[in-house]
């Protein structure tokens, strides 16, 4: 009787350890996590998320030595890299936008300054993004990793490289703000 592929499957940590000597082994990590990382990135960043998802795996390959190979699931780690890439890329875009506005003295410019906020507005509806966009980025990232990417508190902590207690606090505060912001206009 053939051994089932699931039973014989190595954990992500073992595969990433093996990819230390043979980077091609990292393709296995890609095959396991690409759909999830892709969906998360496109959810948050629209069409541009496709590039960010691909970039996530290249960055992960470069940083694989930093992965704790005792862990079975590399998903939170990858989603953390994706979150940082989104933040970094859109911060750069926001700086460019600010510079252009200064050049043109465009006082009527869209007040949603953060480019990621704008893209999330297109993806999730303007109202949702307006409320989300005004949360501190670390609160928003924690909340969306938990609710949209369905990570547990412990996994969000792993993704964001902070303690579980910090994640709890960030999510709790984000929810409080969101609830307060939405109470009058959305929920009642």
């Amino acid at each position, binding site marked *: 009787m053939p051994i089932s592929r699931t039973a014989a499957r190595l954990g992500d940590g073992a595969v990433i350890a093996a*990819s230390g000597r043979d*980077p*091609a082994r*990292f*393709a296995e990590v*890609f*095959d396991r996590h*690409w*759909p999830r990382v*892709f*969906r998360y990135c*496109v*959810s948050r960043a629209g069409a541009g998320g*496709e590039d960010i998802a*691909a970039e996530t795996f*290249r960055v992960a*390959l*470069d940083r694989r030595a930093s992965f704790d190979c005792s862990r079975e699931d590399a998903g939170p780690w990858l989603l953390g890299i994706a979150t940082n890439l989104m*933040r970094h890329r859109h*911060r750069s875009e926001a700086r460019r936008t600010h510079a252009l506005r200064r050049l043109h003295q465009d006082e009527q410019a869209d*007040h949603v*300054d*953060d480019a990621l906020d704008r893209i999330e507005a297109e*993806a*999730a*509806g303007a109202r*949702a993004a*307006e*409320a989300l966009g*005004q*949360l*501190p*980025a*670390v*609160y928003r990232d924690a*909340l*969306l990793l938990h*609710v*949209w990417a369905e990570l547990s*508190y412990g996994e969000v902590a*792993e993704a964001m*490289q*902070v*303690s*579980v*207690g*910090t994640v*709890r606090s960030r999510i*709790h*505060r984000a*929810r*409080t*703000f*969101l*609830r*307060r*912001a*939405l109470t009058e206009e*959305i*929920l009642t």
Partner: protein
Amino acid sequence: MNQDPEIDWLLEHRPDPAAPSPIATELARAALLAHGAKQKNRRRAGRLATGMLVAACVAGAVLIIRPDHPASEHGGPRLAIAPRSASPSAPVPSHRGTPLVRLAADVRRLRFHRQTGNATLVVRYTVLAGHHSIHGEVYGGYDLYTDSGHYYWAPDSLAQLQRVVRDGLREPGDEARALRRIAAAAGKSPAQARRAVLGDPDLPAAAPNAKNAPGPPQIIDVRARDDSVVWLNATQALAAGAGRPNVRAACIKALDTLHGVREQADRIGKARALRVSYPDGSEHVAIWLDARTGVPIQERDGDNSTTSYAVERVNAHHLPARVSIHAHLR
């Protein structure tokens, strides 16, 4: 139906992107493999270059050791270390001002906490009420912050924490960096301490003494949001930096910038305390700080939870079997 309306709302608004197309998948996979192959080639070339560099350095080192650089007592070359420039003593804030500013000044004069042990143990006892118990998970626990910047956590017991330390299962995190940044603001103004505690480059700044900036209406009050982040970060850093006077001093100064913050002399058990309360939106939160050391004693998060802190200096590899709830680094 989820009992948390904001979560329901978020889930309703979660975009539902299509699965990645086979073409997108193949392109991303091929790019990854090409990147890996390039990396392998670079590494091979790098090894060759490193070998040559090491050889060159060894040859160079032989040439550099000269008679005017006397050998150390072990026979090796003595390294010349530049003398550390004497840093001017940081200005101590005026002893006038609000109770928080005065406490920060007092705390900065304390230096004795680091004389024993190599880590600060913070034990949190949290009593929860209502549905904010966060999925019934443990809230509180045993935190250990080593002087070398590592953070360990265990939910249930000191024995469990000791195992975590022994196994080297430290928490990943940016706490150490944040604490360093905050500590560096100990001698600065409350506004500068606030910026250090806020510490989020993504957050559009709101002036500490301003209402919302002019412009389109904000759904979220920016000033209230920043104040809330300062409160959260400062109270967490007060616990994490319980063994570090400079961290506490900066956090206490940052709390002084909050809109609506109030201080009141109080007592927790036998300890003299400064009760610092703040209207965080619809919730009233408060923290009790030791009136002499600024070490957190108790915290109340609205009506949801009350956390008591016990703080002790310890040796990370020989944790005590138990800690008194009244331990506050006195």
